[in-house]
């Protein structure tokens, strides 16, 4: 809140009122703090009274899986049948891409059909990339897939690719269906929005258990978890895209006498296609983000390789497999972008090539397959040619450990003693009622009563489900990490905004950081910084850095050129330009970046529980290993609520700020 003096009397009155509110709040907080010594429930109601929501949720999922019946079949039968249906395409892809199959010929003999040979798949990819995106993309495909082959990641990558190939269409179709429903019915939309908020903020681990219970173990469950995780953005994008279709086109549809179905398939969806593509891209990226976690419940593939390597502390192997995921993600991302751009080019230009493409790829795959049948040896990339860089990475970490540990340790000790520990003590000391009050007042001042009630209500949920202490540890850990990540991110963003080249470098680095599974650096971080909060903090900072950089650079670069020209004409030095013009105007954008940083930090909480933190993340993780549905979901909801509180407050602040500036 700004407390600068205002020269108008009305402004002065407002300022006084504002001062009064904040003064009163401060006083109330101090009073609560003092009272907390006597009345324990003010500090943390966990010891006095806990609402047993955990138990209710567990009982509910038990009921779903054991008792709910629709007469002829049970709910569990239904979910199992769904899993069975999804298994068909999944095993199909795994068979042709990775495993091959055996066809019985009569009673005695079987015909072994190998998977499609690696070089055929590689050629097909490169060809498609070349058609869609030209030479640059083709080179990327060669580099990425070549990496998979040469570094021995091919087999696992194909398993991962198979599950992506099924998960993405299912996620896209499901997301679109829900989005269409929400578009058609306001009631559905109203009901769906909070669910989507939760799905995107509740940590994935929290719903792994219910998924396991309902869908069983194995690759299909992993894929379903992936879909649940990757679908919400598609739903949102679909809703927005359909709402964004110009009203004239809707009128056109009605005037030409379209039925509801024609309206949807002939008018709405085709004209919303470019926006829908953004959603598809999101689904692809999020599915790849899930690769590691999905492998915890049986997805196999690259994620499994990363996990097992790291379990054996084979840092180099883990990194190689992790990089394979990153490359796959970047390739698929770029390919989808290129494909959508290609789709937008006139069909006439495409058609001529199109026939050739399909024929070409078909012929290539078929030819290569036959070659593979005749000379099976060709289909396997020789082990001897596989390059293994893992000794180098292992050696590097060992070298750092032996030679730089003392310096790292000094930094760590300093930060722990002077920053982390005091902040943690303070956070654990503040009574929950005071925090709730503060949140409510901030919410009220920023937006109104509604926001105040929402944020205070969420805080109360956390307190009365007995998770206050762990939540505060989470807030402290995330808070410090976000602070560091934002500082680094904004500085980096400033640098990146200076030139196209710097921007390009920043975007690539940030993409890599975001798609490289965090597990890959978790283990080296533990080796260098030991189990504990500090390691967790470093992991969070590394992961959450991305949006701060991206939004800052984007916000600075995107300023209207008129404003830049105007300030240049009024004689701003570059320094003044930055501090007086660019930064203040980019602030809302930067705030959104920080908001995203907070979200990502929260989503890392659960992962850092694997290092050893005693926060909500650990609670979720424990629930997962103990198969305690309720505990996991409640702790997950608490994480989601922390995220939503900060999101709502920041969004309200940005809205206010934008309204002040009247920028859209």
């Amino acid at each position, binding site marked *: 809140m700004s407390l600068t003096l205002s020269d108008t009397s009305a402004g002065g009155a407002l300022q006084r009122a504002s001062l009064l509110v904040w003064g009163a709040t401060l006083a109330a907080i101090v009073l609560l703090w003092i009272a907390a010594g006597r009345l324990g429930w003010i500090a943390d109601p966990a010891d006095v009274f806990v609402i047993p929501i955990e138990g209710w949720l567990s009982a509910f999922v038990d009921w779903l899986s054991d008792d709910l019946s629709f007469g002829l079949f049970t709910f569990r039968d239904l979910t199992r049948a769904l899993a069975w249906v999804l298994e068909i395409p999944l095993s199909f892809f795994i068979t042709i891409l990775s495993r091959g199959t055996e066809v019985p010929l009569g009673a005695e003999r079987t015909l072994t059909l190998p998977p499609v040979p690696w070089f055929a798949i590689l050629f097909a990819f490169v060809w498609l990339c070349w058609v869609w995106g030209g030479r640059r993309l083709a080179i990327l495909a060669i580099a990425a897939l070549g990496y998979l082959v040469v570094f021995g990641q091919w087999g696992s990558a194909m398993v991962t690719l198979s599950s992506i190939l099924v998960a993405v269409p299912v996620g896209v179709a499901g997301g679109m269906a829900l989005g269409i429903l929400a578009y058609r019915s306001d009631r559905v939309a109203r009901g769906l929005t909070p669910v989507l908020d939760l799905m995107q903020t509740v940590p994935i681990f929290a719903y792994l258990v219910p998924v396991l219970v309902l869908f069983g173990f194995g690759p299909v469950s992993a894929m379903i978890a992936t879909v649940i995780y990757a679908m919400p953005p598609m739903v949102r994008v679909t809703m927005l895209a359909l709402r964004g279709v*110009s009203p*004239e*086109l809707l*009128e*056109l549809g009605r*005037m030409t006498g379209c039925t509801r179905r*024609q309206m949807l398939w*002939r*008018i709405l969806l085709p004209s919303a296609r470019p926006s829908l593509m953004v959603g598809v891209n999101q689904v692809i990226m999020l599915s790849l983000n899930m690769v590691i976690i999905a492998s915890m419940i049986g997805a196999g593939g690259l994620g499994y390789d990363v996990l097992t390597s790291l379990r054996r502390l084979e840092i180099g192997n883990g990194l190689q497999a992790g990089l394979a995921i990153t490359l796959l993600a970047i390739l698929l991302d770029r390919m989808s972008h290129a494909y959508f751009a290609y789709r937008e080019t006139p069909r006439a230009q495409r058609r001529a090539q199109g026939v050739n493409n399909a024929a070409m790829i078909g012929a290539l795959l078929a030819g290569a397959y036959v070659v593979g049948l005749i000379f099976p040896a060709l289909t396997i990339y020789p082990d001897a040619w596989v390059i293994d860089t893992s000794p180098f990475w292992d050696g590097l970490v060992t070298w750092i450990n032996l030679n730089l540990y003392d310096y790292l340790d000094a930094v760590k000790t300093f930060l722990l003693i002077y920053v982390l520990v005091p902040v943690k003590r303070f956070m654990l000391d503040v009574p929950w009622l005071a925090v709730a009050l503060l949140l409510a007042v901030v919410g009220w001042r920023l937006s109104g009563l509604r926001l105040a009630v929402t944020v205070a209500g969420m805080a109360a949920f956390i307190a009365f489900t007995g998770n206050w202490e762990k939540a505060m540890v989470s807030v402290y850990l995330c808070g410090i990490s976000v602070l560091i990540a934002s500082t680094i991110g904004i500085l980096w963003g400033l640098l990146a905004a200076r030139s196209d080249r710097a921007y390009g470098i920043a975007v690539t680095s940030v993409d890599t950081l975001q798609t490289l599974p965090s597990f890959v650096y978790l283990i080296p971080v533990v080796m260098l910084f030991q189990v504990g909060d500090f390691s967790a903090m470093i992991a969070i900072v590394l992961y959450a850095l991305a949006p701060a950089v991206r939004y800052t650079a984007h916000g600075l670069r995107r300023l209207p050129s008129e404003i830049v020209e105007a300030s240049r004409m009024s004689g701003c030095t570059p320094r003044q330009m930055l501090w007086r013009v660019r930064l203040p105007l980019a602030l809302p954008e930067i705030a959104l970046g920080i908001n995203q940083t907070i979200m990502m930090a929260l989503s890392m909480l659960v992962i850092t529980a694997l290092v050893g933190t005693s926060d909500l993340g650990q609670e979720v993780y424990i629930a997962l290993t103990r198969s305690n549905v309720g505990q996991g979901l409640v702790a997950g909801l608490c994480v989601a609520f922390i995220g939503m509180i900060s999101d709502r407050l920041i969004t309200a602040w940005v809205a206010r700020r934008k309204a002040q500036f009247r920028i859209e």
Partner: protein
Amino acid sequence: MTQDSPLADNAAAPPPDDDTPAETKLSCKGLWKVFGADEDRARRVIQGHDGVIGRDALEREGFAAAVRNADIDVRTGEIFVVMGLSGSGKSTLIRCLSLLLQPTSGELIFDGRDLLGCSEKELIDIRRHKMGMVFQHFALLPHLTVLGNVAFPLEIQGVSRFDAEERAHKMIELVGLGGRETDYPSGLSGGQQQRVGIARSLATDPDLWLLDEPFSALDPLIRREMQDEFLKLQRMLGKTIIFITHDFDEAIRLADRIAIMHSGDIVQIGTPEDLVIRPANDYVRDFTADVTRAKVLSARSIMRPADEGTSFAGDVAPVDRVTDFAARAIETEAPLAVRGRSGRLLGQVDREAVIRVLAEAE
């Protein structure tokens, strides 16, 4: 018909020389459109006042009307222009006439059929076959080619692709876009895009052709060109047209009759000439003030009864505009004879009368 005043009243009747009085294609009576949370209550309020309720009275009830008590008869084959500035309710009116918006109250008859009583299915059928609409921002489907866009309404009806495309080809030729069939809308200029929109709206050969500010989004030069072509098309097709515009000059140029709207009310309905000569109020007068009168006034409105035995310098038709014969009238001292289609002498136009019009002195 003899007239004692040169300013003959012809607002409510067809021009005297049209042999058959045209029948009504679309008519609405007491049409209201009120926006608000509770339209049902608005309907009861309006009907409680027998369809006539003052603006203030309605506002006291908490409603604002976009279209108030509109009575319109659109005759077969005429170009009926609804003209109004933004917020006047003209867009709402055309959407009520096509039932894109459900009117709050009133009646709506199309080809003798009560549209408000139609089921959704019947409406779909009427729209598919009897109505065509052109939109201000073209409303072209970005994923379809020119051909695909024009064939779209036919394909929606279930016409086979072959027939639909054949018909679409004809329409595209008609609007002068032959050869651009495989282009996508994004590759066309605004004028070309609207030609596609026009071709599409005509593909189903509708009886009623609705144009919602079709040329407003175009550059002035292109707009002019499109207006000319529109008139040319209409001479060939003879559709019944409702044309919305905010441009009074455009209205004057195109209209057989104009309805002027202001704040939801229809202020005046009449021929362009009518509006110029006898504006219903100051609002209309303000619009007509800048109109080049020579382009609007016809021979009939400035003629006087012919003097016996005058020798005429030539003949004009009663509907001819002053601009059409001004040169001839000024060249000679002798007046021009105004003759009906059958050759009957209706009156004479004097040189002074023409000069007065050209000098805009009235």
